[in-house]
């Protein structure tokens, strides 16, 4: 009995609350605004953009890639050795300019000595 009375008391309180809410509730209105959504570009736009990028990359690579035969000839013609270049050809210079690998030191030394000989010969040629 007490429980029911308490429940009735609670119901009365909620009834008052409900009447207040309903009196002040805004009228129903059709939702007008759509939430802003991030729309992804259509697939064909993405594919076209990617294709353009790839084509551009290929064009740049081929344009600035391997030099033409004309360029090679021109570079060869411009080779020039200074009269004091032989001073730069010190023994074992190749060892200083490269990273030696284990087991290949002997070969590298041979290559270096050949290089030195070549340079000495070239210098002699220039002097003469």
């Amino acid at each position, binding site marked *: 009995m007490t429980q029911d009375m308490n429940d009735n008391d609670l119901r009365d309180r909620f009834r008052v*609350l409900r009447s207040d809410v309903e009196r*002040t509730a805004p009228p129903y209105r059709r939702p007008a605004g759509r939430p802003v959504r991030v729309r992804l570009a259509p697939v064909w736009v993405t594919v076209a953009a990617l294709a353009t990028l790839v084509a551009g990359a290929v064009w740049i690579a081929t344009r600035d890639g391997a030099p033409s035969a004309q360029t090679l000839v021109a570079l060869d013609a411009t080779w020039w050795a200074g009269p004091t270049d032989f001073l730069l050809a010190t023994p074992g210079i190749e060892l200083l300019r490269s990273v030696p690998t284990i087991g290949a030191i002997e070969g590298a030394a041979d290559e270096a000595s050949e290089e030195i000989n070549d340079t000495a010969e070239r210098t002699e040629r220039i002097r003469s």
Partner: protein
Amino acid sequence: MHRPDLEAELERHHRAAYGWALSCCGWDRAQADDVLQTSYLKVLEGRATFGGRSAFRTWLFGVIRRTALEYRRRSAIRRLLPLQVVRGPMELHVSTDPAAALEQRETTRRLTAVLARLPGRQRELLHLVFYENMSISQAAEVLGVGVGTARTHYERGKRRLRELLGGRGEL
């Protein structure tokens, strides 16, 4: 269900839905309005689909509750202060009897303040049962919990509500 039918249903349950949105949003009117509009959009755009497995009102209340949860999750400040700020719950209808109006205002203020101090589940259950006159099983369906769990929350909530309403203090 077609759009005109959905709109008719939404309009029919609008007042109850507004009260439920208020309860889900800690009696914050601006937030409740946003939540309600978002929920209606979900329903009308088909992002929430009524399957007919329960009453329309039960299903709609579930959508509103989930939307309010999403809304609160998105706002860090609101998450930190979910129910601390209880704004003047509503501007009361001006009664011809000032004394009666004052009493009504006080009853409402006191009840919303006490409800704000209850745990979420208890508050939701009491609202659905006492405000919406739902049965405990209907309320359990809205909240997505078992009837036994709902009954436990209901009993605890009712006991706590009585304690707080009967207690003296700043209420």
